[in-house]
């Protein structure tokens, strides 16, 4: 954290500025090749689902933006076969959940949806894009944080525990291929509502 950031905090200007800062989707596409590495090097297959998590705004303009996002996904789905659904979790956050066996289509659709939010001026409402992986009984996720423009791994176990060994392995293998968040203070968990479900279930 730079001196300038500290000064903004000390002057009481930072909370508002950071919360309204535009999203950073630059490195989102890194996930396309990461799917291949996850499978080849770690044996993790795509879970066939990815999701975009965002917080709503209590305004009519935002409701219209959501309609636009859905229209774009519907149009894209006709071409790629990607199916989507909406979900609201126990924390009051909203999800656009995409299903497709082809990971490439998942990444593209997430990117389209995120772009629409950003273009309509709601980039700051995007919390994360979450890409699911599975291997036997274990689950793992790569989470893209739109606030920081970085990826971080998340491997939940039962009882709100994290599999830090697995997260370490994912970080080590994918670092360089994905822009991985170095500061683990920013590896925010996205706990699922049910113990064995995805964060969007």
């Amino acid at each position, binding site marked *: 954290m730079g001196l300038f950031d500290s000064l903004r*905090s000390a002057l*009481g200007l930072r*909370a508002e500025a950071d919360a309204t800062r535009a999203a950073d989707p630059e490195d989102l596409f890194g996930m396309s090749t990461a799917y291949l590495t996850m499978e080849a090097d770690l044996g993790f297959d795509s879970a066939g689902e990815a999701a975009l998590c965002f917080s709503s705004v209590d305004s*009519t303009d935002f409701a219209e933006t959501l309609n636009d996002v859905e229209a774009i996904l519907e149009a894209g789905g006709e071409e790629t076969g990607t199916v989507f659904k909406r979900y609201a979790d126990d924390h009051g956050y909203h999800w656009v959940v995409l299903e497709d066996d082809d990971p490439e289509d998942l990444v593209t659709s997430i990117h389209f949806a995120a772009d629409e939010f950003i273009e309509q001026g709601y980039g700051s409402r995007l919390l994360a894009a979450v890409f699911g992986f599975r291997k036997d009984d274990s689950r793992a996720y790569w989470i893209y944080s739109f606030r920081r423009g970085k990826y971080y791994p998340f491997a939940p176990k039962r009882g709100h525990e994290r599999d830090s060994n697995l997260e370490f392995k994912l970080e080590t293998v994918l670092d360089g291929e994905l822009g991985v968040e170095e500061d683990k203070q920013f590896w*925010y968990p996205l706990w699922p509502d049910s113990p064995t479900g995805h964060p969007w279930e």
Partner: protein
Amino acid sequence: MHWSRDRWLVATTVVSGGAVLVGYVGFTALLLNLLGSLGAFVALLFGCLLFVFLVAGPPLTLRGVGANVVTAREEPVLVGLVSRLAQQGDVPTPAVAVVDSSEANAFTVGWRGDATVCVTTGLLDVLSRDELTAVLAHEVAHVANYDSSVMTVASLPTLVGLSTAEASVDVASKSLQAVFLGLFFGVLSAVLVVLTAPVVVLLSRAREYAADRGAVALTGDAGALASALQTLTVDDSSPPASDARDLGVVSAFCVVSPTSAPLPWLHPSTDRRIARLRELERTVETT
């Protein structure tokens, strides 16, 4: 989201924050000029006191109000909400603690990166989920803005002035000779309080408004925060007469002024805060 800065508020936080800095520098220069090496010693002593307040203050405060830190397993919704708000605001996730008190309130202590957001059981009882999210967002905004530390630094001279004024009265009542000594220190303390208190009040109120705006920037829902403030203020009117662990010691950090606050004017009135939130709602909705 349509968003524009409140320039008047930015100017107020910057000017009052600057006044605190100028006050500290001016006070140190005055001590060195008037008292030489003794002045340097006093300044050093004050610096140590400030350091102790900043480092030992948060854990002592948490213990003082009986705050229990909770995990995601114990309080999945509460901890999950704070974590998501922190992610949205790009701050490291603060610890979350619950205080067993029927007085509905919330406060934050500690430095960004090592902060703890505390809520009372009373707060969890009276607020809906949207209102709770709004209050937690207000606290996360405090974390992002270093408010707990900044207010500790800003208010210490006033607190020292108030304690020495009280001590001077005690000393003066002991004997006739001590009257002059008591009077001398009493006047000095009064001058310190009169000079510093207005700045502390101005800064504290400005930072409450800034945290309200930060909260709306995080949640996108000005109405929920307005409704939470309303609920907490109404709830305030019928407080328990004697809560074993009242919130007076953390009053400067609370989302609304607690009933036992020694300086109740550190918070802007709920009506004014709601009026500003209404303006903000209009901006988000219409521009």
